[in-house]
């Protein structure tokens, strides 16, 4: 069965979804990723979905779940490169993925993971003021 590769870059894990997600693939990714986080003691996870063109409510929910699970395992999660159509679909489905951090591309996503104050814009504002 095909699987989505999980790459390790130092203390971060990198997941690049290059194929259209189907339900079993998403569930397999959820399994693999949680296992890898525990095994590698990763501090951050970056999920690149820039090639993902189609989402349904299930995939949307799994994406949110994966991010929440990673956070419970003490790894920051950033979802990067979401396509406009995907963003609109998720919002219309009522899945705003609150609590999941997002970035426009992989570069900024990595910067967000590395920055110690990157939790939210407000915290960055306070950081900038001090």
């Amino acid at each position, binding site marked *: 069965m095909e699987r989505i590769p999980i790459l390790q870059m130092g203390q971060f894990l990198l997941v690049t979804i290059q194929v259209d997600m189907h339900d079993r693939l998403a569930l397999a990714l959820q399994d693999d990723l949680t296992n890898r986080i525990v095994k590698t003691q990763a501090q951050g996870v970056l999920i690149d979905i820039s090639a993902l063109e189609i989402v349904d409510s299930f995939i949307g929910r799994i994406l949110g779940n994966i991010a929440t699970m990673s956070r419970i395992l003490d790894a920051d999660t950033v*979802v990067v*490169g979401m396509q406009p159509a995907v*963003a*609109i679909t998720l*919002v219309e489905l009522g899945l705003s993925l609150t609590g999941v951090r997002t*970035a*426009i591309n992989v570069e900024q996503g990595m910067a967000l993971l590395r920055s110690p104050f990157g939790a939210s814009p407000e915290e960055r504002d306070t950081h900038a003021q001090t």
Partner: protein
Amino acid sequence: MVLKSKSVVAKILEQDETTLQTDWLKALENSDMYRKGVIRPAELRDQCSEFLRLLRNAMQQGNLTEIQAPEWANTRQFLADMTRVRAQQGFSPQETTTFVFSLKKPLFDRLWQELPKDPQQLAEEVWNATTLLDQLGLWTIEVFQKNREEIILRQQQDLLELSTPVVKLWDSILALPMIGTLDSSRTQVVMESLLQQILETESQVVIIDITGVPTVDTLVAQHLLKTVAAARLMGTDCIISGIRPQIAQTIVHLGVDLSEVTTKASLADAFAIALKRQGLKIVAAS
């Protein structure tokens, strides 16, 4: 009897066309609905004689009641073209239909002269003619209305495209000045163009300025929040600016929760905070 009665109006049109046209022109020029200066007298005369000619041709086919029939196609086309031109010149529907209705008086005068001794036939003739002219007049109103609707529809579409510019203020800072009432279809267009621009410019901050939005109700607020949520999913922070005092009051009274979103009173404040987030600041030139 019917055949004969038909021929009276047609006969008048054939034989007394010139006098009829002169009377009609006089009636048109004397009516308040005739705008001197907008239509030249020569043009009006041409239109009158053309209409009379078409009317005569159509009547010779013998159909006096059904103007949707094919033999009336030319007459309808002529009236439609004329109405279109007049609508563009700013005529009111009343002024436009007067062109047709003002033919009644001269035509009935002629009928009365033709049939002085036969009141029954006269009444019948008048009835036929009036039905016919009423239908033609109503037809011009219909065309007029259709024209207006087309214009309104086109303007709506123009507005939709015109009023949703996405402006790049600085590297990775976009601004979206919203103008006019936000409804579902407009918000959809706005959201799509904004997200596309975010993707192309890889922007990190978007300032949504609602100074030009006259009112904010729950629906508009919901649209705004949806846009903010979609932009956030793509990794871009949104700042809402240009909130007027009244709108702030309305938002609180409606119970709309904007606590998740950074809000600023003016676009300048929002731009300042956006720069700060990018680690930039504006300094005076020495």
